[in-house]
């Protein structure tokens, strides 16, 4: 178990280094970091040289990278060009909204997706099962941004049951959370169903039934527990999808989180803020994935005892 956790922790360090390297490296993609940062601003030769020196671009890249990591490690994410205040402040203002959305949609995925999958497995090949699985296939084919706009059109514009955009009470989070979670609800339902069907065909389930245990105990105590193991692995992946998806969903619903700020910073040519948003979201992602890995140890005894 310790070996497993140590490997995971070690791997996370590489991921963090990789993420910082990418978000640092984007400045150098076009060859001239000063030009990337300045965007459309025109400067004379000497002003340009002065700017390069001021930003430290005249130093070797590894010194700059080291410096960058040092600053990130101290939660110094620089200053936004567009807003003129520190990026850390901007992110602290917006990150609660993003985390809230991620938690609500993760909860929806688990609370809706798992029972649907179980229900379909128990009533395999019934009309309900077939219809639900067809719906799940369709849900997996719809692009998130389009689903969001369609839900907005129907529930906010036509029926006027829910607000079109913004953040506030619980009614503001319903549509964004459904949009963000529908694809993973569908995926989870399909996963749970097939995993459950596989488990239900195992010998120990027959043994449990033969012992005269009630169907309820067999289903929930013996089958579900084992069927959840493969499902756990995709929960971590889901969270990554969700942080990426938050960029799209927050943009569609004008929801004031870090995801929307990513797109705003691109439109404002505010590269320092973009870098800061990306690194914070990525660190959040790595942190949550690590947490899922630790949880995994408790769910799967095979890892615990290895």
């Amino acid at each position, binding site marked *: 178990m310790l070996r497993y956790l140590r490997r995971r922790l070690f*791997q*996370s360090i*590489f*991921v963090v280094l*990789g*993420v910082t390297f*990418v*978000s640092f490296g*984007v*400045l150098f*993609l*076009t060859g001239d970091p000063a030009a*990337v940062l300045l965007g459309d601003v025109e400067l004379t030769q000497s002003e340009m040289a002065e700017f390069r020196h001021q930003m430290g671009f005249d130093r070797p890249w590894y010194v700059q990278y080291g410096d960058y990591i040092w600053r990130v490690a101290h939660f110094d994410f620089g200053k936004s060009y567009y807003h003129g205040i520190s990026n850390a402040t901007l992110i602290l203002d917006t990150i609660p909204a993003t985390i809230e959305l991620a938690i609500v949609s993760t909860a929806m995925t688990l609370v809706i997706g798992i029972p649907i999958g179980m229900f379909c497995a128990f009533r395999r090949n019934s009309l309900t099962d077939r219809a639900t699985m067809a719906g799940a*296939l*369709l849900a*997996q*084919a*719809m*692009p*998130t*941004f*389009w689903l969001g*706009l*369609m839900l*907005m*059109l129907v529930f906010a*514009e036509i029926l006027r049951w829910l607000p079109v955009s913004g953040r506030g009470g619980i009614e503001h989070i319903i549509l964004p959370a459904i949009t963000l979670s529908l694809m993973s609800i569908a995926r989870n339902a399909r*996963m749970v169903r*097939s995993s459950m069907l596989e488990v239900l065909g195992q010998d120990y389930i027959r043994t449990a039934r033969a012992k005269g245990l009630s169907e309820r105990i067999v289903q929930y105590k013996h089958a579900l527990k084992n069927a959840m193991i*493969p499902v756990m692995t995709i929960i971590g*992946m889901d969270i*990554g*999808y969700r*942080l*990426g*998806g938050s*960029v*799209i969903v927050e*943009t*569609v619903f004008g929801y004031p989180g870090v995801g929307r700020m*990513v*797109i705003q910073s*691109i*439109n404002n040519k505010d*590269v320092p803020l*973009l*870098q800061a948003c*990306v690194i914070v*979201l*990525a660190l959040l*992602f*790595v942190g949550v*994935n690590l947490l899922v890995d630790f949880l995994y140890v408790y769910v799967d005894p095979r890892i615990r005892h290895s």
Partner: protein
Amino acid sequence: MAHITKNNRFVRELLKSPLAIFGLFAMVATCVVAIAAPLLAPLDPGLIDVTKRLTPPAFTDGGSFEHILGTDSLGRDVLSRIIYGSRVSLIIGVSAVALGGVLGVVLGLLSGYFGGIVDDIIMRLADIQMAFPFILIAITILAVMGPGLQNLVIVLGFTGWVTYGRVVRGQIFSLREKEFVESAASIGSSHARIIFKHLLPNTWASVIVITSFAVAHTIIVEASLSFLGLGVKPTVPTWGGMVAEGRDYIVNGWWIVTFPGAAIASAVLGINIFGDWLRDYFDPRLRE
């Protein structure tokens, strides 16, 4: 001879599944539309006619058969733009997956065949990449490098190798121990001959299955990036770009947003359904 019998089984099995036929049909239809776009599109997709702006679809009040799916805010024909939009989706979907597929198969082969340190390095790389919030990285790189077809294909291609690499590696790993590989090695076959003649052909089934899902996934990611303004240049019609342009007219022009999105969903649904069927056809054990 063996080839023909194999094809017969393929057709026989396919005819048994109406759902798979639907999937294949949707897939083929998307390809035909993309290839024959100039013949099928009723109008020039870039033709602006402000006098006809926001014309509703033909089957609703105020619509006309001149614009079957209506027009957008500049009076351009929505149907023609959807037809041309299929081209970008497919070109990027197929070329990015081809790039990722070749990369993944090669790395998977090396990893599975040679094992040891090569395997360790490649698989840790795969683990690390899987733990990366990919779409965020794609957004950042495209925002700085500038959008465009080539950049999109590179970014999407380099992130797509992991699934191929892992699956091919796993298969090679178990095949390597089989007797036919041992006997090939014992008669002096080179590494290259063993890999390409004996091992690679055994991985095709899974490579084809992965490819179908990868193309569908790439189409969605490309559309999402186009929606965010990070796709190909705005003058080229794309499904994601059309939805983005229609956003501000969602109330007065619901059709501008609705139809391109439906096109994405039906293309992806078709590919996914056919991919599911292919997976079962090749090997029921490949189910996740």
